[in-house]
């Protein structure tokens, strides 16, 4: 076996460089892994399956709704409005901080911080920043009205139902 020859002038710098390279590679690898893990953990917390109530609510047949009135459906936190043969679904969730508004003679009141809305759900007073939401309402094949609470439509959007 040939004697091990160490040339101090040649071996020192490559060793330095190799260390620096390995340090960089290790640091970048571990940092990437840590970053990815944190990101995945954060995404993990964002649910993909909603176990709670479905965003679609069936509210009944069109002719069950009296003409020209609001029907409050507290469990769904919305009300259905009928104007002739036109239907609309308006949220009863206060746009300020989410309390449930109550119908009054002139519109709606929120008990939490005193916001007021008119009959259309337009914010008239108090801290509420915008009108009550209007939801998409459609007719199912079985002839029932269905409200999709995840689908907010422009103000004054009605569904025409042929009678």
């Amino acid at each position: 076996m040939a004697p091990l020859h160490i040339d101090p002038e040649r071996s020192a710098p490559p060793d330095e460089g190799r260390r620096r390279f390995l340090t960089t590679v290790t640091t970048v690898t571990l940092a990437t892994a840590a970053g990815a893990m944190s990101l995945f953990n954060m995404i993990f917390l964002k649910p993909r399956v909603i176990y709670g109530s479905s965003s679609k609510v069936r509210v009944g047949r069109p002719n069950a709704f009296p003409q020209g009135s609001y029907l409050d459906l507290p469990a769904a936190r919305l009300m259905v409005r009928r104007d002739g043969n036109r239907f609309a679904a308006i949220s009863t969730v206060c746009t300020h901080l989410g309390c449930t508004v109550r119908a009054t003679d002139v519109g709606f009141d929120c008990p939490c911080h005193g916001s007021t809305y008119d009959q259309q759900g337009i914010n008239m007073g108090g801290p509420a920043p915008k009108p009550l939401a209007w939801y998409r309402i459609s007719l199912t094949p079985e002839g029932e009205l269905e409200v999709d609470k995840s689908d907010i439509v422009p103000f004054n959007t009605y569904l025409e139902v042929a009678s």
Partner: protein
Amino acid sequence: MSVHEVVVPQSINENGGLAGFRGIHRRIWNSVFRKPAIPQNELEHSKAVADNFFLHIHSAKVHDRTLKFRTTLGLGLLSFFMFIILVVTGVLLMFYYVPTPAEAYNRMLDLRGAVFFGDILRNLHRWAAHAMVLLVVLHMVRVFLTGAHKAPREFNWCIGVVLLLLTLFMSFTGYLLPWDQLAYWAIVVGTSIAGYAPVVGKSMQFVLLGDYSVGGEALLRFYVLHCVALPAVLLALVGAHFWRIRKDGGLARPHGNEEGDSSNTKATVSHMQPGEAPSFERFPARAGKTYGLMCVVERSSPATKVEPECQVQSWPAALNRELALFVISLLVLSIFALIFKAPLEDPANPLHPPNPAKAPWYFLGLQELVSYDAFWGGIGIPGILVLLALLAPYLEWRKGGEGVWFHRSRSAANWMFLTIMLTLGILTIIGSLFRGVNWQFTVPW
């Protein structure tokens, strides 16, 4: 030869058979403590404190100023004791609690009516939580008014700010758990506030609730936050907070002579600022020799030749006071828990918010702000206040007034701080007493 004949049988005897039990209690004891059972002198006291895992959070000796009641008013320690009491009572409550909308409220009723000692534990837990919020705020006020947030303690102040936020978040997640009306509507309003945060608001709200509306998923999430995630972070930060106190050289106290002249204390007294308590320079920069057993700080160490006339032994001086304070606080809290029941409103009813729907007292200042404008009241102003609090010690960088109540050179800072705190206090009082149905202004009398 005769010596061997005596010694060998004896050693066999000691290591074998029942004789091995002789003196075992002493061997067990010594393996645990490695020290005399009860330290007899100053050296042994110091060693006991330094070597014991649970005691070594103290330095062997402390400045006697640290132990003066008027230095701290005991507020930091009391906050910590409340935390301990909350952990113990909280873990016990967990044995009965079920975090589902169907069960949670019933379990509260069970704790109140059926479970032995259940109501007392619940009362203790609730009142300790209220007390902790109050004490942590007061502790912050005392730290500021004594200038103890200034260099080199800026970062510990920042840890403190985070501890305050965690304390508030702990109580917010906690009062959700009974799933009564207060709980339900507090979380509706609270998570809606989070929804107003710029950019991330809506997804933060969604992640907090685990759903688009408040329900079982939200309850489960808040339960995990309240019982595991937040206390773990809080405990870790309390550890860091205590560690920093020692690394920053113990509690803030007035500077002695800045040049590090270790000659004696009289020089210090003559350099005293008017209104400053007499101080003794314990960590002169140019000290030749240092004590080994004291808390070690970077840059400087306590010098020999300076008479340790104002050092006292942590054991017994500090430990006795801490024990006394703990016993007194537990006693007061227990009496309170025996007399006053923790509130429980009607079961959560998603259809009808109570009117007025009020948060607990410490959030009513926030609720008052929010009733003017959701973004500014719930995100903007609180955000600015937290930022100001974090920056305060860095803005107030000029030396002077450390460890002195209402030091003259700091009166501007103190007035600003007190103005903010008083404003928040007044808002809290308005929200608590002067708001009625539909959040209309009313008078309580």
